[in-house]
């Protein structure tokens, strides 16, 4: 047959010689390999006690940030929701009232901000889209739950804890 490329290699299968057919040298070699692992350090991480550190660019649960004075940064512009390929983010905007200047940084803020964690693919586009540096995926792994509705995270779970706490 015409070779398709110059990389063709003819395999040459020799019949096994006596020691190869006797298996024993190969078995002894194998035993040597396994016993060397007996004395090696184990590579496992003892999980519940010991946790493996995530890499620095790990994307975990979202958090809505506050500024230096403890005010919510989010202005409910909707760019994160727009950029979200999984359409996991929904929000309702509201106007800041007089006396709430210490709560929200701008005149507009998100009254409701929800992320459906079952839809989120942790791509990080919301993070990139945000002009106010208000959302980051810097949290831990999203915890498990039993009901689908519990995976829709509202502001109670997303907003960072206030500064003075």
């Amino acid at each position, binding site marked *: 047959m015409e070779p398709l490329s110059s990389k063709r290699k003819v395999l040459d299968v020799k019949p096994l010689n006596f020691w190869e057919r006797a298996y024993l040298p190969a*078995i002894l070699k*194998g*035993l040597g*390999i396994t*016993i060397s692992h*007996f004395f090696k350090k*184990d590579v*496992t991480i003892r999980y519940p006690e010991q946790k493996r550190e995530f890499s620095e660019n790990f994307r975990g649960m979202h958090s809505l940030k506050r500024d230096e004075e403890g005010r919510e940064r989010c202005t409910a512009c909707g760019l994160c929701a727009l950029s979200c390929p999984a359409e996991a983010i929904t929000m309702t905007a509201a106007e800041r009232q007089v006396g709430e200047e210490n709560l929200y940084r701008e005149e507009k803020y998100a009254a409701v901000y929800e992320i459906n964690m079952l839809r989120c693919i942790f791509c990080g586009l919301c993070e990139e889209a945000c002009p106010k540096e208000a959302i980051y995926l810097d949290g831990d792994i999203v915890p498990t739950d039993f009901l689908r509705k519990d995976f829709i995270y509202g502001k109670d779970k997303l907003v960072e804890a206030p500064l003075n706490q």
Partner: protein
Amino acid sequence: MEVADILIKFGLIIVIFLISLLVAMYSTYAERKVAAFLQDRVGPNRAGPFGILQPLADGAKMFMKEEIIPTRASGLLFIVGPSLAIMTACIGSAVIPWGQSIEIAGRVIPLQVTDINVGILYIFGVVSLGVYGIMIGGWASNNKYSLLGAIRAASQNISYEISMGLSIIALLLVTNTLSLKEITEQQHGFWQNGYFSWNFFKQPLGFLIFMVCAFAETNRSPFDLPECETELVGGYHTEYSSMKLGFYLFAEYINMFISSAVMATLYFGGYNYPFMDWVAAHAGSNISAILGVVILFGKVFAFIFFFMWIRWTIPRFRYDQLMNLGWRTLIPLAIANIVLTGLVITFLK
């Protein structure tokens, strides 16, 4: 026989029985630990420090699990199967000499349940009875795959028993006796009359054949066809659950312990160890005997470790390869070994 003698024998039987069970129990733990270490893992470490309570937890789990008996299984035989397996595994220990005699208050206590003069034949008989446990279990399950597995396991056991028996004959030519006690006594010390006294040095090929057959007889690793659920539907214990399955698995571990003890006794000098006469002269014969028991158990544990080491090294045989090895390699080799031994004995002695 006096009452005291009977009581001593009875105590010895109980002690050996309990030790067999304990060793088998902790073999399951050791197996998992050894497996873990050979694979750079940690192994069981939840129950107790280093997981040493794991066998108890496993046992509790086995007893608590639901017992499922197939609808049309033959009721009595289904229960008899695992009982036979574990019973035959346990009674093999009766003829193994665990140590030299101990003298307490003028009474000589032999550390062997019974020194019958057909010791090896007794062990062979008991081992071949083990096939019944497997066969009955597979038959009573009323499942064709179990039956096929049982036939597979039984024919494996029987095939390898032939070469095992043949490999022993060469040893018997050397030792001139069937009594395990006498065979052990002949391997006294380590260096005797200018040569190594352990039978391993006189019968290396015989030992190799015997060991391979022991692996096959105990259904251990390269020959562990009943354990490959994914490829072969397990085998004779497919329909078993809870402690009945536990008994089958446990019987395997007891078998492993007993066959290790037999190998240590036949080929590695049993309770004999280098400089035993010096120890007996300086520290007393009782100390020497107890040290001998410890040494024997050391050898047994080394063999058990070897069983496990092999398990995580060599891949499982295919069934035709297994039969090929048994019938076309080991049996001719064993016969050649007999001829060779005979020639050496005839012309050199």
